[in-house]
């Protein structure tokens, strides 16, 4: 029985097709979910892809979070549905308060697209269990508003609880606090990250294949669930 993973499409989503491709390559079935339709179509997990939903107007993800589909995502996530937010998806998860903190303008004020060195900090999430903590991987980052911020208490709590999932190595491309590239909720079913694993599943068109683990992880998590 093939796992079905939803990929939400907002007006302005860009990397939904690449997320769908990555899902297909891992052996699951991608299901397209429209922002205006509250139905999650019985999917086993949901991905909020990268892009410029609503043109990044007001704030990145600020308008998307009020979409009908997001109400369903929030409810389902609180009941344990695995959710992955990539880049703009991460921004939407923070705006929805499924994850703490916020993403702000890159410290350099420039959009940066780069193959980024990262370290997996936690493999205790539905999306990273196929990695080992400490794994060093390379995945593209491409964003202008990727600087993760939160107050000190929140940052301390994320670190202490092992909820930092991914950390920048070498150069921090956007001035994110504590070099944080991705985080999880307390339960580990909701993960948000700025880098794009869907652009690292095929060496021919991506930065390599280091991102495939995110997609194989969820399949394993669903089988074991």
């Amino acid at each position: 029985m093939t796992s079905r993973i939803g990929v939400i499409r907002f007006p302005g989503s860009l990397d939904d097709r690449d997320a769908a491709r990555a899902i297909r390559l891992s052996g699951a079935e991608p299901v397209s979910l429209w922002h205006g339709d509250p139905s999650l179509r019985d999917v086993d997990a949901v991905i909020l892809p990268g892009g410029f939903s609503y043109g990044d107007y007001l704030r990145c993800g600020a308008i998307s979070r009020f979409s009908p589909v997001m109400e369903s995502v929030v409810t389902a996530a609180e009941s344990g549905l695995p959710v992955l937010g990539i880049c703009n998806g991460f921004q939407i998860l923070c705006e929805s308060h499924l994850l703490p903190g916020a993403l702000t303008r890159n410290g350099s004020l420039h959009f940066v697209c780069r193959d980024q060195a990262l370290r997996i900090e936690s493999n205790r999430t539905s999306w990273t269990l196929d990695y080992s903590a400490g794994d060093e991987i390379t995945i593209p980052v491409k964003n202008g508003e990727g600087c993760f911020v939160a107050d000190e208490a929140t940052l301390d709590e994320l670190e202490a609880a092992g909820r930092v999932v991914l950390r920048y190595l070498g150069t921090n491309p956007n001035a994110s606090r504590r070099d944080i590239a991705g985080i999880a909720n307390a339960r580990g079913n909701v993960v948000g990250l700025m880098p794009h694993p869907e652009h690292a599943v095929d060496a021919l068109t991506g930065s390599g294949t280091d991102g495939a683990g995110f997609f194989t992880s969820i399949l394993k998590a669903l089988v074991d669930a």
Partner: protein
Amino acid sequence: MARVVVDVMLKPEILDPQGQAVHDALHRLGFDDVTAVRQGKRFEIDLAGPDTEGQRDRAEEMAATLLANLVIEEYSVRVEG
């Protein structure tokens, strides 16, 4: 018809690279008495109906729900005459 103005600013502890860039540019233009710059957003919202106290409350709700991200921003509301 009333107009409500909502000003949204980053909280003081949040990194404001745009404000910093503006500060640096002002200095390069000779305005070296500028010690700090913070950049924010201003929303001008026109509301139908007669001006009532309720409109300030509604503007506050708009600000808290959508216009400002309370994790990193704070806001102030002003009803214009």
